[in-house]
């Protein structure tokens, strides 16, 4: 239990979500449900079955004309950012 809690906390941190201890039991329950589902999927024999990317095997033809038609304001763009400096989103340095 604590092991799973630690793992979920770590995952939450990595994906930049704040998870409180109150929310943890619900998350663990959902996680278990999800993993059960995955287990079930894993039990299905997919030998010789081609992967399916789209439910309908249709081809489309639409291409968008190259026109600028939508820009959002800088204020809106930066609204959700936790930390901003010089109109840019500030993040911890991770050099790839």
């Amino acid at each position, binding site marked *: 239990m604590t092991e799973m809690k630690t793992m979920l906390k770590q995952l939450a941190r990595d994906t930049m979500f704040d998870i409180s201890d109150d929310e943890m039991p619900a998350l663990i329950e959902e996680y278990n449900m999800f993993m059960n589902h995955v287990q079930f999927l894993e039990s299905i024999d997919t030998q010789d079955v081609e992967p399916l990317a789209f439910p309908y095997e249709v081809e489309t033809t639409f291409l968008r004309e190259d026109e600028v038609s939508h*820009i959002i304001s800088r204020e809106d*763009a930066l609204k959700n950012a936790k930390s901003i400096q010089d109109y840019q989103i500030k993040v911890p*340095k991770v050099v790839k």
Partner: protein
Amino acid sequence: MNFEQIIGLEVHCELKTNSKMFSASPVTFGKEPNTMINEIDMAMPGILPVLNKRAVEYAIRVCYALHMDIDELLRFDRKNYYYSDLPKGFQITQEQFPIGKNGYLDIVVDGKTKRIEIERLHMEEDTAKQFHYDSYSLIDYNRSGIPLIEIVTKPAIRSGAEASAYLEKLRQVFLYTDVSDAKMEEGSMRCDINISIRPLGSQKFGTRTEIKNLNSISHVQQAIEFESLRQEKIILDGGKVLQETRRFDEKRKETVAMRIKENVANYKYYPEPNILPIRLNHQWVMDIKERLPIMAEQREKIYIDKYGLSQSEAHRLISYKELSDFYEETVKNCSRYKIACHLLLGEVLGYLNKKNISLEETKLTPHYLSEIIEYIDEEMISSKQAKEVLECVMTEGKKPQCIIEEKGMKQISDVDILTQLIDQILDNNEKSIRDFSSGKDRAIGFLVGQVMKETKGQANPKITNQLLLKLLKERVQ
């Protein structure tokens, strides 16, 4: 032991479309951060990508220029990785079905032509730009979603010189197909190098390293030279080259390890579910081929065959797309093909380099250039004066005719006026006549100088020389 370099290049090129690959926000460079974006570029929830038609057209143009097979059924994949420059957590790319396959580009190194085989060309989107500081990074999303094409060669390149020739040629393809400004210093053309070495004659490939994000062609060549020597030393010392990603340190001119690649990075590619396969209209694809602009090589041939330029003049001219375009416009109304070429490659290019600007930033127009050439032709101005006029036009943008009048530049070609003047000068310079008769040629130079001084440089040099010789001979006899 002699080693052979095995090099493959991956080149990214930003397309100069109006809008982004999958969103209707603008493609720009150097604008205020985070002002050229929308929800799609920032990966806000609920967004859907819609492919840009012109980006596809540009990709197809380059495919044709590189003699590739074109897949008319477009399919996209997700390349998953987590990094702050990639807001969605995946990049939309074409891993499995690139739009172009099996192409080539012929390069010339040391006078020999070599065909560089190209494996693939695919479309994808650019990432956000990050600025790294000591303890944090800042993100500007303006670049996020700009259309990119990536072109990957087979491991067919064998030296830094070949790599550099290939990149020059590829850059020319981007410029002449008119799909990108291909500025390596601004990042609209970027290059990664894959390099390994092996004993000459061996068929087995050695372990390769990847050098990322080179931003000039000369750096590519330097990086290859350094890296192959580094690998050679390791092997000769009995060591093993590690499969790693390196970067090029521009100051120290060496490659530096960034990270070890233990396995091939697992990008968990899978088909992009938000874009159904798109079947291109076959006729539209054919039309793009029909309308393909004239490529550099064809222009070079025309310059030599039709305009009578030398091989090296033609080659130099096409290597500056901007000058070549300008030349094309100029010779529409001017049949002095050689003079036009000389002025562009000489005075104009010299001026641009001196001021470090582009031709577009000057006020010269093809019309003004042909006007100046006309005046030279009619011997209204000397070629020395032409240079002055040209510089004035480039800086001030006045009509050449106005400049000539303002500066009182008109060349004096009137034989009577010049004869009278030369006679006067000869009267005052008896010594020079004696010098001339005793075979001292520099007397002529001195006398021409006197004529120029008297006319403030406006005497037609050709006529002055002829007249002076004639009159001198008459006096000596």
